[in-house]
C-alpha cells in the first residue's frame, strides 16, 4: 500500500535534485559554450545550444598571447596566502572567543560585527591613502593584507562556532592527562576542527579569488594584477572579445572549482561540528 506512494516520493525527490543541478550548471555550460564558439558564429548562432563549429582558439590565444597566465599566478598567490593566513589567525582568535571569558570580549565581538555592516567601497580612498606611502599599493602583499583583514571577522565567528561545538571536557581531560593548554589545543582540539578549518579555508579562498573592487583600485600595473582585473582588461584591450573573455573565465574557474570540490565535503561536515550557532 505504501509502496506506490514511496516510489512517487522518491521520483519527485530525484527529479527535484536533477532540476536544481540543471539550474546550477546551465550558466556554467553557457560560459563554456561561448568560449568554444568561433568569433564569426558568436552572434549568428548566439542562441543555439551548441555552435555548428567548436574551436579552442580562444583558449590558445588566452594562454599564449595574453597576460592571463601571469594574472592567474598572481591570483593564486594572493588567494592561497590570504586563505592560509586568515585560517590561522581566525583559528586562534576563534579559540580565544570560544574558550575564555575576559574583559572587553563584548566590545571585540561588537567591533567585529560592525565590520560586517558597511559598504567596503567607503574604505577604498582611506586605505589607498594609508597604503601608498608604505609602498603597498601596487603590490600583492598590500592586497593580501587588505583581504586578510576583510575576511578575518567572519572567519573568526565561524571558527568560534566550530570550537564551541567541541566539548570543553576534552581539553580538560587532556590537561589532566598531562598536557599544557597549548598541547591540548594542538593535539586534541586542532585535529577535531580540521574540517572546520577546511571550510574556512574554502570560504576565504573563494572570496579572495573573486574580489574585484580592491584589486582594481589598489593595483594599477599588469605585473601585480589579479585575474578578475585581468578579465576586465579584455573589455578594453580587445574591444570586448567575449569569446576570449569567456575562455579566460572558464580557465579561471577550473582551480576554484577543483579547490571547491576538494573542500566541499568538509564544508558540510565542518559546519556540522558546530553549525552556525546563534
Amino acid at each position: 500500500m505504501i509502496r506506490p506512494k514511496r516510489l512517487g516520493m522518491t521520483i519527485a525527490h530525484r527529479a527535484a535534485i536533477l532540476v536544481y543541478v540543471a539550474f546550477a550548471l546551465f550558466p556554467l555550460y553557457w560560459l563554456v559554450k561561448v568560449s568554444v564558439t568561433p568569433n564569426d558564429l558568436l552572434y549568428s548562432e548566439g542562441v543555439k545550444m551548441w555552435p555548428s563549429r567548436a574551436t579552442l582558439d580562444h583558449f590558445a590565444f588566452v594562454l599564449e598571447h595574453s597576460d592571463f597566465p601571469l594574472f592567474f599566478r598572481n591570483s593564486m598567490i594572493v588567494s592561497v596566502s590570504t586563505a592560509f593566513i586568515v585560517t590561522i589567525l581566525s583559528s586562534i582568535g576563534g579559540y580565544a572567543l570560544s574558550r575564555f571569558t575576559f574583559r572587553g570580549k563584548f566590545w571585540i565581538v561588537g567591533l567585529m560585527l560592525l565590520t560586517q555592516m558597511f559598504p567596503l567601497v567607503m574604505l577604498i580612498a582611506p586605505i589607498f591613502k594609508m597604503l601608498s606611502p608604505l609602498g603597498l599599493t601596487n603590490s600583492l602583499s598590500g592586497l593580501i593584507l587588505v583581504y586578510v583583514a576583510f575576511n578575518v571577522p567572519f572567519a573568526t565567528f565561524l571558527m568560534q562556532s566550530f570550537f564551541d561545538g567541541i566539548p570543553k571536557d576534552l581539553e580538560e581531560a587532556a590537561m589532566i592527562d598531562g598536557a599544557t593548554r597549548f598541547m591540548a589545543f594542538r593535539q586534541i582540539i586542532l585535529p577535531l576542527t580540521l574540517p572546520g578549518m577546511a571550510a574556512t579555508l574554502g570560504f576565504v579562498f573563494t572570496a579572495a579569488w573573486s574580489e574585484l573592487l580592491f584589486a582594481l583600485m589598489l593595483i594599477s600595473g599588469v605585473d601585480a594584477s589579479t585575474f578578475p582585473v585581468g578579465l576586465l582588461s579584455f573589455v578594453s584591450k580587445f574591444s570586448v572579445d567575449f569569446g576570449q573573455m569567456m575562455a579566460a573565465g572558464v580557465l579561471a574557474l577550473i582551480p576554484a572549482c577543483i579547490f571547491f570540490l576538494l573542500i566541499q565535503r568538509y564544508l558540510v561536515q565542518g559546519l556540522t561540528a558546530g553549525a552556525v550557532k546563534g
Partner: protein
Amino acid sequence: MASIDITDVRKAYGSTKILHGVDLTIKDGEFVVLVGPSGCGKSTLLRMIAGLEDISSGEIRIGGRIVNDLDPKDRDIAMVFQSYALYPHMTVADNMSYSLRLRKTAKEKIASAISGAAAKLSLTPLMERRPKALSGGQRQRVAMGRAIVRSPKAFLFDEPLSNLDARLREHMRGEIKKLHQDLGATSIYVTHDQIEAMTLADRIVAMNAGLVQQVGSPLDLYDRPANLFVAGFMGSPAMNMFEGTYRAANGGTVELAQGVVVPLAGPAPTADGTKLTLGIRPEHVLVGKTGLEGIQALIDLVEPTGFGTILHASAFGADVKAFSLERGVAVRGDTVSVSFPVERIHLFDTATGSRIG
C-alpha cells in the same frame, strides 16, 4: 598514592559565592564519596582539586604538597568525566596511552601498562576501535582505563556512571569497588545515587549549598545524621519528619500535632518547650492492628516494590510513611495503629536543624 588535605577552601565566581569554606582530609588510599543536591558545588570542589578551576581562597594539598598554583598536568591525578571525554580521533589504545606518551614513557612500558589495564577492564578486543564505535558501557570502561594506566596519586570521578542504564550501573559499581580494592588508590567520587554512595564509600561527605554538612562512614550518616539536611537526603524512601515540642516531664516526650505524644528513650539534652523535629525512617515505623498501643492512622496508598511494601498513612494531620518487608500488611482504607520505637527516633532542633542527642 597520597592523601588530600582541603583547608578552608572557598570559591566565588565574581560576586557569586559557591563554596563557603570547605575543610576535608582524605587519607591515603581512602574512597570518599561526595553527595549533595544538584548545584551544591560538588563538581566545583572536584574540579578545584583537579586544577581545572582556580581556588579563590584556602589551600589544597596533595601528598602534603600545596597544589594551589600547580597546573592540572603537574598534580598527577586522574579524572573520569561524566561525559567520558574520550578523544574522538584516537583509538581506544591511543586514548589510554595518551598520558603516558605525554610523559615520554618508554614504548615497552606503555604497551604493558595499557595491555594490563585493558585486561582488567576486558577491553582487549576493542583496542583498535574509535570511541564512536563503542557502546556506552564500553566507553565508560575506556574512560576508567585511561585513568588507571598511569597509577596517579589520586582518582577523581564526577558522576561516572550516570549515563549508564540501571543494570550496567550496578555492574560497573562492582567493578569500581573491585578496582579500588586492587589498586588501593585515593579516590574522590561524586554521585547522586544513594546506593553508589553507600556501597562504594569508606566515608561519605554530604554537602549542601557550598558547605560540608557531615562527614562519616556510610552507616554513620544513615544511623546518626548530623542535621535535618543529611537526615532527609540519605535514605529512600526518605525519613519521616514531624514537627513538635519537647516536654521534659514523664522522662521526656515529644508532643506532635493534635495532642499526639511520643515517648522518648530518656530525657533529651534540651530545654522543656523547645521546638524540635522528630525523624524516623520508614523501615523503623511499626504498623499493627488497631487496638494495639500506638497512633491511629488511615492507609492512603500502598506501593508494593516487590522487595517490600511502602505504606502511606495519614495520622495527626501528617503523612506517615512506613516500609515493611512483608506483603499484605494492609490495604487502602484500612485503619491501623503506627508506633515509633524509641531507640529509632532521631531528634533535631527545628530552629538550627542540628541533631539533638
